[in-house]
């Protein structure tokens, strides 16, 4: 048994035993409220893992509460039905809001969600026929187990009901954050473009997190309605969301236990401040400010650092340079080239960045795209990988037309790029970087992740194995535990290569892979690219290092001002007059005395 599960069992046993230890009703009530806020904060934390802060989260709590309460008051439905109905209602509301707003990022998303909560608050306040407005909705029946004679009557009963709800929340959020779903969410936060190009749809995953967060908030709302039995528009107040956000950040955002620690601390702290009477809220604000300023990463982070200073993980056995498992072939028919670009034109204003470009990448071929700065090489890459819309023309992957597909879908087919600038997930370990990029290979669905099915566990193990293989292949096996941003520049490029290989592509696009590498590193890189071809991949690369291009590539395509001016073997290109004039030069400038 691991230390972690021992702590888990001890914590669970303590939570179960608490009411039996003579804790009085006042503290039981506070614990119930802490649990309630934990469920809310945990949902907010899940979505925040992707960098999206929902500051209207209390709206979904309130919607769940009112939906559940109104069904109970007006239709006399059993709380056994109204509570899940409230959760579902909030989930649907969250889905609808997410559909509209999850294209927004950062501050925009934050402000729009605040606005949403405010609109709902005003509707609930003014729609007095339905909600009784500011008077509040009284007479919500207490919770019962199917019939009124099984009503929950004591605080202790509600404590256990909340314990079940909080336990379910803990399980769900822990499973999600600790799986490929959590990795996908963090990837969106750390480097959205790289996430998309590894086959992760930012929109889809943030929407999933939002819906789950809102389902949880709605369930918490339903619980609250039947526990307090009185609802008012105050539930939608901004102050509530602020409380949740404080719990998440002060507890430790992105961690599983952070929201729980935050909820406990910030439910009990204001109670302790009661003795300060008039100064209570002022002190609360000051504590809040101090926590944000001096512990921005949250209590769990600092506690864990204390624990971590005692233990350090074992170094992985290095077996650098070993082979890895490659992707399967392109499309169906082996007759068509791996990748075809047909008459693609992209204009920025009046300027044609790429002008009627056509090229074909054969299977197992290494093709270079060269040309002076501004020739349109990166634009061509962006069109091929879906980051830039083509004005006219088509892009085919095998025989499939992929023109206009979003990046994550193109990556999902097995056409993956490496970015020009160093592109990694900076705040994750090297291993997690590659593991995150293995995303598209996963087959088990959400249910499998949530139940921790055998297939899911086997798949996780397989992916870790694959990620280690890839790190070993690029020569970073001994660095798997290091944070990506702590690696050297050259190592980060190699990590980028491993990330690009992780989704098992059949075609790899490399944008200036040797930029910023020294001669030794470049030579190693050439060996790696040769090795990648040896695994059956086709490679299209943009590069300025002519030694690499001429020494490695089967064919070369030359661009100048967006136009293809030459195509041929390296030897042909080196003799091509126009290429020499536009790009390669004659060497005279150097030779002249």
């Amino acid at each position, binding site marked *: 048994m691991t230390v972690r599960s021992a702590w888990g069992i001890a914590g669970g046993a303590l939570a179960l035993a608490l009411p039996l230890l003579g804790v009085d009703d006042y503290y039981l009530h506070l614990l119930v409220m802490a649990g309630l806020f934990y469920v809310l904060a945990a949902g907010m934390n899940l979505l*925040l893992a992707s*960098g999206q*802060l929902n500051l209207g989260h209390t709206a979904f709590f309130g919607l769940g509460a009112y939906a559940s309460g109104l069904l109970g008051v007006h239709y006399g439905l059993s709380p056994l039905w109204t509570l899940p109905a409230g959760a579902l209602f909030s989930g649907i509301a969250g889905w609808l809001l997410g559909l*509209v*707003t999850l*294209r*927004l*990022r*950062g*501050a*925009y998303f*934050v*402000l*729009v969600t*605040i*606005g*949403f909560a*405010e*609109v709902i608050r*005003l*509707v609930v*306040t*003014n729609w007095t026929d339905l909600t009784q407005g500011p008077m509040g909705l009284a007479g919500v029946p207490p919770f019962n187990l199917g019939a009124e004679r099984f009503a929950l009557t004591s605080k202790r009963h509600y404590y256990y009901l909340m314990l079940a709800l909080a336990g379910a929340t803990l399980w769900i959020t822990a499973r999600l954050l600790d799986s490929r779903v959590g990795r996908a969410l963090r990837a969106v936060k750390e480097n959205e473009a790289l996430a998309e190009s590894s086959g992760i749809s930012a929109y889809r995953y943030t929407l999933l997190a939002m819906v789950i967060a809102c389902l949880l908030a709605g369930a918490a709302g339903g619980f609250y309605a039947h526990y307090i039995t009185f609802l008012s528009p105050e539930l939608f107040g*901004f102050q509530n969301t*602020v409380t949740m*956000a*404080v719990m998440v*950040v002060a507890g430790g*955002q992105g961690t599983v236990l952070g929201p729980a620690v935050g909820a406990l601390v910030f439910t009990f702290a204001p109670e302790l401040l009661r003795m300060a009477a*008039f*100064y209570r*809220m*002022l002190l*609360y*604000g*000051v504590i*809040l*400010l101090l926590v*944000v*300023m001096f512990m*921005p990463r949250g209590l769990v982070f600092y506690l864990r650092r204390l624990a971590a200073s005692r233990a350090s993980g074992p170094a992985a056995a290095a077996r650098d340079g070993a082979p890895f498992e490659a992707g399967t072939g392109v499309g169906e028919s082996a007759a068509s080239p791996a990748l075809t670009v047909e008459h693609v034109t992209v204009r920025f204003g009046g300027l044609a960045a790429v002008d009627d470009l056509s090229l074909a990448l054969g299977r197992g071929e290494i093709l270079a795209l060269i040309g002076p700065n501004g020739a349109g090489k990166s634009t061509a890459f962006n069109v091929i990988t879906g980051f830039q819309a083509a004005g006219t023309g088509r892009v085919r992957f095998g025989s499939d037309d992929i023109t206009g597909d979003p990046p994550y879908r193109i990556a999902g087919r097995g056409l993956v790029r490496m970015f020009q600038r160093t592109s990694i997930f900076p705040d994750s370990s090297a291993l997690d970087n590659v593991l995150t990029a293995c995303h598209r290979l996963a087959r088990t669905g959400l249910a499998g992740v949530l139940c921790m099915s055998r297939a899911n566990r086997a798949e996780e193990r397989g992916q870790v194995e694959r990620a280690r293989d890839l790190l070993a292949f690029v020569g970073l096996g001994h660095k798997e535990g290091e944070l990506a941003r702590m690696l050297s520049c050259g190592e980060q490029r190699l990590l980028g290569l491993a990330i690009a290989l992780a989704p098992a592509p059949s075609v790899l696009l490399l944008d200036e892979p040797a930029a910023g590498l020294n001669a030794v590193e470049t030579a190693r890189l050439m060996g790696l690219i040769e090795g990648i071809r040896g695994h059956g991949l086709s490679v299209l690369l943009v590069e300025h290092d002519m030694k690499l291009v001429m020494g490695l590539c089967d064919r070369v395509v030359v661009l100048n001002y967006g136009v293809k001016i030459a195509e041929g073997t390296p030897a042909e290109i080196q003799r091509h007059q126009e290429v020499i004039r536009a790009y390669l030069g004659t060497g005279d400038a150097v030779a002249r005395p």
Partner: protein
Amino acid sequence: MLAELVQHVVNGLILGGGYALMGIGLTLIFGIMRVVNFAHGELYMLGAFFLYTLFSLWGINFFAASLLAVAGVALVGAVVERLILRRLRGQPIEIPMLATVALSVIIQNAAILAWDPSPKTIRHPFSPVPLTFGPVHVVAIRVFAGAVAVGLIVGAHLFIQKTRLGRAMRATFQDTDMARLTGVDVDRIYLFTFAFGAALAGASGALLGAVFWVYPAMGDLAALKSFAIVIMGGLGNFLGAIVGGLLLGVAESLGAGYISSGYKDAIGFVLIIVLLLWRPQGLFGGKGLVR
């Protein structure tokens, strides 16, 4: 009928001028410092309370008191930037955001302790008899508030476009590192930007506080509305904040007149949700989405 419509529009424009001042401050602070200032409403409230204290309690001349009130809010802004926000630079966006949330709790509760929560009026020296412009009747204080708001907006615009400091602010807005390389003291720009944004919020609070009521929670709704305004106009967009503010003022005034005063405060948010469906980057948001 038409007269009534014109009357609503005029009232809305005057209200919108105050909103625009709030919005400009918020949008400058966000654009230049990448801080969503949740204490903006409290700075607005402080402007009103400083005026109330200086003028109604201490008997200082109304106009002098207004100037002093705005200067006082600017000073509060400068202190906040220097002691708190400067230490949080480089943190993810939610950290300074939560710090300003904490600040708003602190300032609002300090105001409750200092001035008690009951609403107060400022007995300004203007005549209560409405001035008549054709079919429209407006009390003098509103004319004054509208005129000062316009003056401040134009002044802020000229300041940002024409002065050396304004140019340094624009440079920092576009690219902080590049501005630093060309010799702009970015710390000073941040300090000034926050103080300037605070002063505009304080001025808005003093003006609208003299027209309406003064109470510690008056900033809550004002802050939410200024958020709506800056989203409408595009975060960090100066012109957008002005247009957004005027638009919201008029829409609210018309909404209260013709629809329902209960839903008046929801209009701004309904507007932004509709707007986002149509133009996710805001009315003028040429900069695209901002992280």
